[in-house]
């Protein structure tokens, strides 16, 4: 019986330098896919490679054998010796593969739980494999099921919501105040790392202009170049307050740089347009009392950190809900896996009935010769239809069975009743026979759905 198997490393098990070595994108995903599918043990394969994980999803017959083979493959393909690889690998078989993939697609296995990119990455990995012809009915089903699970978790829980970094929290606040940021100017005071990070996020929102002021003009110019802004003399900060809508301050100054008076003074020129000030410096760069001015939104590092930790708490409260959805979907997938075991019996049953039909037609050959070709075709159609209709309910019932034991019981009984040859396991059949049993090209009557 063919089954699912997964071998991989992720940020949970491997340090970043090993993950870098195992990055499939580095050597080209198509090459990797071709190499995996060439291994005799692998019937179908998908390679999922992101900066936090490298995973091989395959269909195989023997899990132990495949594990050996894939470990060898990983080492050879990436030129890593086995000893340094082995302690960081994890593997799953059968329904546990589905559980793992569904958790990955839902963002539950990510470094930042609930981050949204991973679902797209899983989709891309599947598309690449499917385009290369490396997937069949089993992995198709598994991956489509994982997309649906990821989507469900996204829409039914709040797992991915709320900023979880200080700089992103600042940007989402800015968006809540100004809406689109494309018509707003940014003033950065200070040229440190936090300023740079926040500026990068703001630039991604396509702010109109970024001005950088620093006591050391060289630093200002350097940061301005990095974030695509312009450097500003230190003395022009106060007059720029009149035009900028978002101000980020992060200097090492021991005393406040921007006072309440200077802000109150520009509010008139600003015609009361809102001013959003993000003061991430410790000690603070902006007088705290400035926050009392009506249209000034003043957030310091603690305020932002408070928002982040609230969001993180909310996310973790959503994890249980997300896990429950994953468990539900895994159950569904497991039922499908079990029902799939009935496929060989279904195929054998259909073959048996078809053989009888053909034999009877052959026996009546003599009596049928006087018929016109059109009538001949009708006889053909009618007999086929009868067989289809006879098999309709049994086929559906068999595929609806969800426990492995019942499937075995029914298969044995049917084998005895209809004198079926003991059905060959699905793995040894060509895939199209399995697909045929799942979606028979039946004449008009829908035999399965």
């Amino acid at each position, binding site marked *: 019986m063919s089954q699912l198997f997964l071998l991989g490393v992720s940020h949970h098990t491997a340090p970043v330098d090993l993950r870098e070595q195992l990055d499939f994108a580095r050597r080209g995903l198509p090459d990797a896919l071709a190499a995996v599918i060439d291994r005799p043990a692998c019937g179908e394969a998908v390679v999922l490679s992101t900066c936090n994980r490298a995973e091989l999803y395959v269909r195989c017959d023997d899990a132990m054998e495949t594990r050996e083979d894939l470990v060898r493959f990983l080492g050879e393909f990436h030129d890593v010796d086995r000893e340094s690889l082995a302690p960081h690998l994890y593997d799953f078989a059968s329904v546990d593969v589905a559980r793992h993939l569904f958790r990955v697609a839902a963002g539950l296995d990510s470094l930042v739980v609930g981050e949204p990119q991973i679902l797209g990455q899983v989709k891309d990995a599947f598309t690449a494999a499917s385009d290369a012809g490396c997937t069949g009915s089993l992995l198709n089903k598994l991956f489509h099921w994982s997309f649906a699970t990821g989507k469900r978790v996204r829409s039914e829980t709040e797992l991915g919501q709320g900023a979880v970094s200080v700089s992103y929290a600042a940007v989402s606040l800015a968006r809540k105040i*100004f809406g689109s940021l494309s018509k707003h100017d940014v003033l950065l005071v200070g040229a440190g790392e936090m300023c740079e990070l926040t500026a990068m996020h703001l630039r991604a929102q396509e702010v109109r202009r970024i001005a950088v002021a620093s006591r050391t003009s060289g630093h200002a110019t350097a940061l301005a170049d990095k974030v695509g802004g312009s450097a500003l003399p230190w003395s022009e900060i106060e007059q720029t307050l009149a035009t900028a809508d978002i101000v980020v301050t992060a200097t090492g100054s021991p005393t406040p740089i921007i006072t309440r008076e200077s802000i109150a003074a520009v509010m008139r020129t600003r015609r009361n347009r809102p001013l959003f000030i993000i003061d991430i410096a410790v000690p603070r760069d902006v007088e705290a009392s400035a926050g009392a001015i009506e249209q000034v939104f003043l957030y310091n590092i603690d305020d932002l950190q408070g928002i982040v930790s*609230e969001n993180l708490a909310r996310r973790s409260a959503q994890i249980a809900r997300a896990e429950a959805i994953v468990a539900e979907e895994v159950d569904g997938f497991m039922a499908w896996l079990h029902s799939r075991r009935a496929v060989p019996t279904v195929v054998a049953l259909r073959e048996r009935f078809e053989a009888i039909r053909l034999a009877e037609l052959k026996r009546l050959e003599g009596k049928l010769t006087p018929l016109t070709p059109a009538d001949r075709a009708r006889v053909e159609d009618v007999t086929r239809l009868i067989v289809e209709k006879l098999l309709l309910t049994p086929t559906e019932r068999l595929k609806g069975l969800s426990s492995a034991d019942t499937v075995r019981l029914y298969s044995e009984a049917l084998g005895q009743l209809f004198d079926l040859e003991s059905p060959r396991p699905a793995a040894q059949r060509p895939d199209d026979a399995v697909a045929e049993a799942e979606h028979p090209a039946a004449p008009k009557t829908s035999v399965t759905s």
Partner: protein
Amino acid sequence: MNIAPLLLYAAAAVGYAWHFGKRSSRAGRAATTMLAAAALVHTFIIGMQTTEVGHLPVVGTTGALSIFVWLSSIAYLYTETTSNERSMGVFIVPLLALLQIIPTVSRYQVVARPPVLESPWFALHVSSLLFAYASFALACVIGITYVLLFKELKAKHIGFFYDRLPSLQVLDVMNARAVTIGWTCLSVGLVVGGVWATQAQAEFSDPRVQAMSVLDPTIFVALLCWIVYSFELYARRAIGWTGWRTAWLSAIGFAIVLLNFLPIGYFLTRTHNF
């Protein structure tokens, strides 16, 4: 009046509340569908009444109220579709459902207008005022949501409204737009009403027509409304008032509109009780 629109408005109100509370997009879509159905059925009923009496059934406060609810729901649906923002529904649709109770349970009959109202001025006067009031209702709701979000942002305790409402900027622009449209219609309605009342006073001896002056409660309060909204527009342009100040003004203005509609319209006016 037929109960169907009321039931649909109420169902839509529940849908919007569910959508807002649970952030369920399915409930939101259902609420919009329900509200659209309510507006459609309401249109149909008003259409029937119009063919019955030969003009829009706006004679009397109850009839006007029904038209007001109808226009507001259409104005809201328009705003929702153009701004792609469903979160305001929970603030306005329940109000519409409540107001719709009055025409539904009162035993009012649509009657043909008395001869004094048979003038094209009358139709223009009433419809522009009702449209103005519908816009003010929207402006008020947008203003309230603005204040709620503003307070959360100022208190640096983001949460419930932060997750559910659009940005302050968007709310501010929507408020300004609604007030501008409403103020324009209000001005037209008042001027037309004045011109028409002067004409009618010369022609008819009806005491209600003769009593029409600035001192009548309905007319006085309508003028008060005009002053409030004119000030809001002036403050926005000239003083640079934005945000929560104009939001409050819209709320006050609409409170006056409701005052004019319900207690004054039903009990106090000596001129607008046809």
